[in-house]
């Protein structure tokens, strides 16, 4: 490792920006369509992120609890069953309820344009559909992760 890092206490910590992004991937509804989320899990890993995959059928409560326990930067939700307006909202509401404002939420799946502003209002951004280039998604996740970290840092 670079020599400067280990010369003093704590100097071997990774800087704010270099630290890998920690992301939780979850499908919080009754939905087994996992092709997209599995591709993203691998793509995020290959982009250097630390990925926690919550598997199929976690409840919104479980997703929020996991996000908190793992202290992730970002929660990425995916649904292709049309229930995003109900289920994504539940996740966002629970986060708020638990006083968490420094974990970003992003969404994806089959989300009609009309629903996107409503999700944005809940703090759920991205909301990408099939055919979105992975690089676009990674850029967005990175941007949201950095925002979340800034909040974390100031909150600490």
């Amino acid at each position, binding site marked *: 490792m670079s020599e400067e890092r280990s*010369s003093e206490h704590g*100097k071997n910590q990774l800087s704010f920006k270099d630290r890998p992004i920690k992301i939780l991937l979850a499908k919080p509804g009754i939905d087994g369509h996992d092709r997209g989320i599995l591709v993203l899990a*691998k793509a995020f890993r290959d982009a250097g992120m*630390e990925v926690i995959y919550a598997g199929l059928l976690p409840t919104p409560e479980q997703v929020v609890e996991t996000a908190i*326990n793992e202290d992730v930067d970002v929660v990425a939700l995916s649904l292709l069953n049309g229930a995003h307006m109900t289920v994504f909202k539940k996740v966002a509401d629970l986060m708020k309820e638990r006083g968490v404002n420094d974990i970003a939420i992003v969404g994806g799946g089959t989300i009609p344009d009309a629903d996107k502003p409503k999700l944005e209002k809940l703090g759920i951004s991205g909301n990408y559909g099939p055919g979105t280039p992975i690089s676009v998604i990674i850029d967005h996740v990175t941007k949201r992760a950095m925002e979340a970290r800034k909040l974390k840092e100031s909150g600490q």
Partner: protein
Amino acid sequence: MLDKIIEGIYRGDHRSISRAISIVENEGDSENTRNLIRQIYQRTGNAHIVGITGPPGIGKSTMIGNICALLSERGKKVSVVAIDASSPFTGGSLLGNRIRMQESLTKYGVYMRSLANRGINGGLSRSIWDTVKILDAAGSDFIIVETVGAGQADLDVINLADTVIVVLGPGLGDEIQAIKAGIMEIGHVFVINKMDRQGAYIAMKDIEETLAMMPRGEWKPPVVGINSLTREGYDTLIESICKHRSFCETNREARLRKFRTELQMHIDDELRRKFQKDINGVLKDEGRLEEYLLRRIDPYSAAEEIVEEIA
């Protein structure tokens, strides 16, 4: 801020625990980390640390879920740490082991955290030791640490765990011989998973025989066959863990050994830190390197000379 986190840890608040672990994971041995551990250290020492190791796909996660459930049902507070090796190429990692224990985690409010080995020298070791302390201070009776496969993380777990459980299964074939070579000495409890499968019984006998041939210590490692679907064998497994816990509690030597290992790790770090600047200077000194290149001095002698100088 730290005070609030520490107060939260004592309450067992998951968010505070999370934040504290993030500090030791992200900040390395910063002042923050040091202060945190300094303050909570008094409150540690109550948890029994169970390390679980074994080849991937052998069913460790399901087994941990079941252990969590059974210990929780006995009124014990359990926490879990899962360690994964990051990709040496991208630094990324992908952890899915939560899936198979999620039900137990939710049902009993078990705290579980994944740690990725970020490839910093010694960084993981220290953060595992510190993470375990945080969970200990949070009132855990048992802390289960899971590692996947071999490597540094495994060694760390073996060193910091009070009880090491080695999980094996049928169908490993010749592999089992290779695996055996490295693990027979470290296990306090051996588990053969998937007892319903062909070859499980043979694997069990194989391990028992190998153990019988080994020099006997005070503790004789039991070999437990389990079936995670039917929960067969789990009572015996829990009993073995508890028995080994009592054994450890009366075994002063084992506890001292653990403390020595940790101390050694920190002393190494401190020493390196203290002299690193000087060492760096030497390493940058091209004149010296030239001597080395021209074969005027061999690496052993050079190192001896340099250490002499610095100290």
